[in-house]
């Protein structure tokens, strides 16, 4: 079928065996960690989701009971809805914002481009705990800078308890999430823009295309693979939004910021319902797999 396979077939058997043995010797250290700490837990996640599992006793097989409870769990549906809101808002905003920043900063001198790239990557490197803490202060009801600016610039009538109000809490979190996720897409778009075939742009300019036309007709189609990759990683990243919620709101007020990731954590590590948490993990993984597959399919058709 594929060329490497046919290549294997045509070579002497002894050489293939030799190559296979040495290859696996080289792979051994990695495979040890990969199988024990990634593949095995992955398998166990699915397996345990069919058990009533908790601390300090044997797991009890209960078939699809966890899944049944899950689909009847009101909080799960709220969590799913909130997670979807986060993903549907932050993914497009992150992608469009990073594309815009990338197009602007690639036109600058090289040093400036890399300085800006650094600045937009800073919130990622700063780490979720430090970032969350400073935002908590900025959102604070009394001492927060957001309320100070809001009231003094005349945007707000009175101080708002941003994180304590179910109307605003989720949006506050989405804003922080976006600032911590644009770094990587900007880096990727900048390098994609650099790699666009320059002769095509020149040809377009000769034919009288404006810069805008050249961008959408020539550059954009060439960057499709990058865009697809960015969509998928941003989506996975948004689904996994956890530290912000754990440190800022704990899913509250009244479940308005409850997400699947935090609900898994809450069930598994606060209530010790391991089986139930795993069932949720499996559902989450399936949702992410389906959405990624859809994105790939749509991108391929284009």
């Amino acid at each position, binding site marked *: 079928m594929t060329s*490497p396979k046919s290549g294997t077939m045509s070579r002497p058997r002894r050489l293939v065996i030799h190559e296979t043995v040495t290859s696996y010797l080289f792979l051994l250290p990695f495979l040890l960690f990969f199988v024990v700490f990634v593949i095995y837990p992955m398998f166990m996640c699915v397996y345990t989701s069919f058990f009533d599992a908790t601390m300090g006793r044997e797991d009890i097989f209960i078939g699809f009971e966890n899944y049944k409870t899950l689909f009847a769990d009101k909080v799960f549906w709220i969590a799913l809805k909130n997670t979807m809101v986060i993903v549907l808002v932050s993914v497009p905003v992150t992608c469009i914002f990073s594309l815009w920043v990338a197009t602007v900063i690639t036109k600058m001198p090289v040093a400036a481009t890399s300085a800006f790239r650094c600045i937009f990557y800073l919130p990622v490197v700063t780490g979720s705990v*430090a970032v969350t803490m400073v935002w908590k202060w900025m959102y604070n009801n009394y001492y927060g800078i957001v309320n100070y600016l809001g009231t003094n610039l005349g945007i707000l009538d009175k101080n708002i308890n941003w994180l304590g109000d179910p109307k605003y809490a989720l949006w506050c979190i989405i804003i922080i999430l976006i600032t911590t996720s644009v770094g990587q897409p900007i880096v990727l778009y900048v390098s994609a823009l650099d790699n666009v075939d320059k002769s095509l742009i020149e040809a377009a300019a000769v034919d009288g295309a404006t810069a805008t036309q050249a961008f959408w007709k020539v550059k954009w189609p060439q960057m499709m693979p990058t865009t697809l990759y960015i969509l998928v990683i941003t989506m996975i990243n948004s689904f996994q939004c956890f530290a912000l919620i754990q440190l800022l709101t704990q899913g509250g007020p009244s479940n308005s910021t409850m997400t699947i990731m935090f609900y898994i954590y809450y069930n598994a590590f606060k209530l010790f319902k391991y089986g139930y948490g795993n069932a949720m993990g499996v559902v989450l993984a399936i949702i992410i797999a389906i959405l990624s597959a859809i994105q790939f399919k749509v991108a391929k058709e284009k």
Partner: protein
Amino acid sequence: MDNNKTTDMNAIKDKIYYIVSFIAVVIVAILFTFPLYWIITGAFKTGKEINATSPIWIPTEWVWDNFQRLMAKRTAPILGWEIGGMTIGAATIPGAIRWLLNTVVMCVSSMLLTCITSAMAGYVLAKKRFWGRVTLFTLVVCAMALPKQVILIPLLREMNALHLADTAWAVIFPIVGWPFGVFLLKQFSEGVPTEMMEACRIDGANEWRTFTDVIFPMIKPGVGACAIFTFISAWNDYFMQLIMLTSSEKLSIAVGIATMQGESSTDYGLLMSGAALASVPIIIVFLIFQKYFTKGITMGAVKG
């Protein structure tokens, strides 16, 4: 003539658009750096300036007060290894310093182990033709697309069973098993010319020598990218650290600071000094190795 005019107009429009968006990007960039600025200045402000209702943009006096309180908050032994009833390194240091040391140990060990295992595996996946190669590579790519947090529950139970929970290894091993490094170094190894390997074989070098003396030097930039990438993601791997580490003297800096937030949630001066301690070292590392880092991101993305 008319045609020329429209192109001129378009050129002017493009120019205006460019200037406007340049200004906008600068403003947004300032907003992006603001939280970091606020952490660092906040860490050095006095209690009065921290809690001022109209924010103090630049601290009028810089004090170490917050750091002193942070250091006094907890203490921990330097090493605290118990060997045969004796305790080695029992001298106490501030908890926050111990957390920093723990984090550095975790990051460096993850980095070294990941680089070695990934370089070997990536090279073989790129350059050798062996049974099961395609299957293995598919598995690696699929594992990368899965949300890492999903496997945390089984992972914790496994660590408990292996008696590794609440040790640094519980954080390090899953990072080493995570296949991003392999993927990255496979991409780099593809660039090694196959003739090089054949020349080695003709010269009679064995497989291991070929790898250490010829291949490894050629994929060094990739290993550098992998190293810095692993170091930074290990530093910020908060969820894993939170779940695996429980005793106070074993925490990472991120988890340690987060626990402190639970205890003194409105002492923003203290919290900012903690946040600064957790973020400034890694930001410095990032700024130094920035070039490798961006290379790692872009190479790791090339359509799998």
